[in-house]
């Protein structure tokens, strides 16, 4: 009796359910998501498995190759620091920068774009010209400048990188909001006496979430890459902390004597960037209405 009811019961459908169904068929995206989870777990737990600390110098193993018996599974760098622990640390910092900077850019971009699109008219005009202005500025130089001025402070680094990622997000959200404004359910909400902030939070933002999630997933690797570039130039995270970019820079200096110093962090960096891009592509197939 119950089994029959369960079978004949109403099939639930919805945006997220449909999206999940599409996503399930994208093998690469699923594999990439799985890889990311694995790498994140490794970055979180890995350092506790190793006998070494990320800033401990081991003078008996300098530029030593990967080996099991010494406990330096990924080898050591030119100061005798354990590369496994340092790679995990680098992963943590790179992932954190990617996520936090993206979260900041989503927060600013979505609210800015939704407000501009909803209010429209002169306010919209003014707000979007401000975005154009910021776009025209050489952003990378600003990040460099701020990194120098604030002495490579980690928090400032998060914020400045995030603060430059919201421009595209704001444009996307504004465009989506403009097209939503012509939909009658927004008009119906206004006719029901719903206030502007509530309409934005309850009716506009949930409906732009699809494209936002897609673009955010594709923003994460950009942010990671931007930070890696800074670190490569020596202006990113400060020693003895390290991001993947910084490790790659160190590795590049000892490319011939100790190729593992370049290949291991470089491999992780490539893997993370690729995985995020695959996940983003999969999510776009699943969530972006324009692809339907």
């Amino acid at each position, binding site marked *: 009796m119950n089994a029959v009811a369960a079978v004949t019961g*109403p099939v639930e*459908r*919805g*945006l997220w359910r449909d999206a999940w169904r599409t996503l399930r068929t994208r093998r690469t995206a699923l594999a990439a998501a799985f890889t990311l989870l694995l790498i994140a777990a490794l970055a979180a737990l890995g350092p506790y498995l190793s006998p070494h600390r990320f800033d401990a110098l081991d003078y008996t193993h300098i530029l030593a190759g990967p080996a099991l018996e010494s406990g330096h599974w990924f080898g050591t760098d030119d100061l005798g620091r354990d590369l496994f622990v340092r790679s995990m640390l680098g992963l943590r910092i790179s992932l954190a920068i990617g996520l936090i900077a993206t979260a900041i850019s989503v927060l600013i971009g979505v609210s800015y774009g939704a407000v501009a699109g909803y209010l*429209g*008219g002169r306010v919209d005009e003014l707000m979007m010209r401000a975005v154009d202005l910021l776009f025209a500025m050489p952003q990378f130089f600003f990040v460099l400048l701020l990194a120098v001025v604030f002495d490579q402070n980690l928090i400032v680094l998060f914020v400045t990188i995030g603060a430059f990622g919201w421009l595209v997000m704001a444009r996307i959200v504004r465009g989506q909001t403009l097209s939503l404004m012509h*939909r*009658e*359910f927004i*008009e*119906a*909400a*206004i*006719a*029901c*006496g*719903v*206030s*502007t902030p*509530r309409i934005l939070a*309850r*009716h506009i933002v*949930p*409906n732009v979430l699809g494209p936002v999630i897609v673009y955010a997933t594709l923003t994460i690797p950009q942010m990671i890459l931007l930070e890696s570039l800074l670190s490569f130039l020596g202006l990113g995270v400060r020693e003895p902390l390290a991001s993947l970019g910084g490790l790659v820079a160190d590795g590049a200096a000892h490319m011939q004597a100790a190729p593992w110093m370049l290949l291991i962090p470089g491999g992780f960096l490539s893997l993370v960037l690729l995985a995020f891009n695959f996940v983003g592509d999969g999510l776009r197939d699943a969530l972006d209405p324009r692809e339907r």
Partner: protein
Amino acid sequence: MQRLLEIAALNVRFATPEGEVAAVRDVDFGVGAGECVGLVGESGSGKSQIFLAALGLLARNGRVSGTARFGDLDLLTCDRAALDRIRGARVGMIFQDSMTSLAPHLKIGEQLAEVLEVHGGLGSRVARSRALAILERVHIGDGATRLAQYPHELSGGMRQRVMIASALLCDPELVIADEPTTALDVTIQAQILELFRELRRESRLSLVVITHDIAVVAGLCDRVAVMYAGRIVEEAPVGALLRTPRHPYTHGLLAAVPRLDDSTDTPMQAVPGQPPNPAAWEAGCSFAERCTRASEHCRRERPELTADGSGTRTVACHHPLGETRA
């Protein structure tokens, strides 16, 4: 006589790249308490814009002048907060297309609760029982299941009932139904109209029905106003208007309704010509170009809306039909 809603000298203009277009011109319109008024006109005659303007829902390029008194408040000049307290609470609005007018991402229960939260500040349990009661009132069975469903899971007629339910949630004094049955097929149309009639019997609800379908008005309303090219051209009790239309346009509209007992050889009685371009409305009667009774006088001087001897109806025509003296 104090009426519930009194619209006076209402003008709605839209700024377009081709210049300013007048959509509604010098409209006076009132709804009494407990009264049902129909507003009939073809597409573009400005019938919807009157109420979109009154509720502050005009498109961005729209400009409005005149007054729309609701109680002791002028809806056109009061601030947004005052308007928000009235919209949804004291005036409910029902839109034509229930598919696009219900938020696609919210469950029925959430949409109904939103109205109650905004206006009543009700807690979720009270809101839910109120929502269930209102669904029952519009004859939606199995309300608990419906509350958990999304709009696309309901049929068109069901969605329209939900729209009506959400307009009725806060016990409004006035409900404005903009083409409430146009998107539905005829059997569902009949059910929805019956629902409106029932709601009117149960409470002293005032109702404005905006439609191009004169049959909708015939079975539901007390009074009808006919709009043409942004103006009201005739206003009368519904029976009188249907039996003896005075304005040639009203007459044409009624004659254009096909009848089942017409012979199949009888050609459709259409009103000849096209409505005038709203950007180029000129002096004189705007219907003159299409009117069989038009004279030189009609093209020169626009007829004012004037009451006839009975005092219950008005018409804006120099040569009205059925004039006993003429």
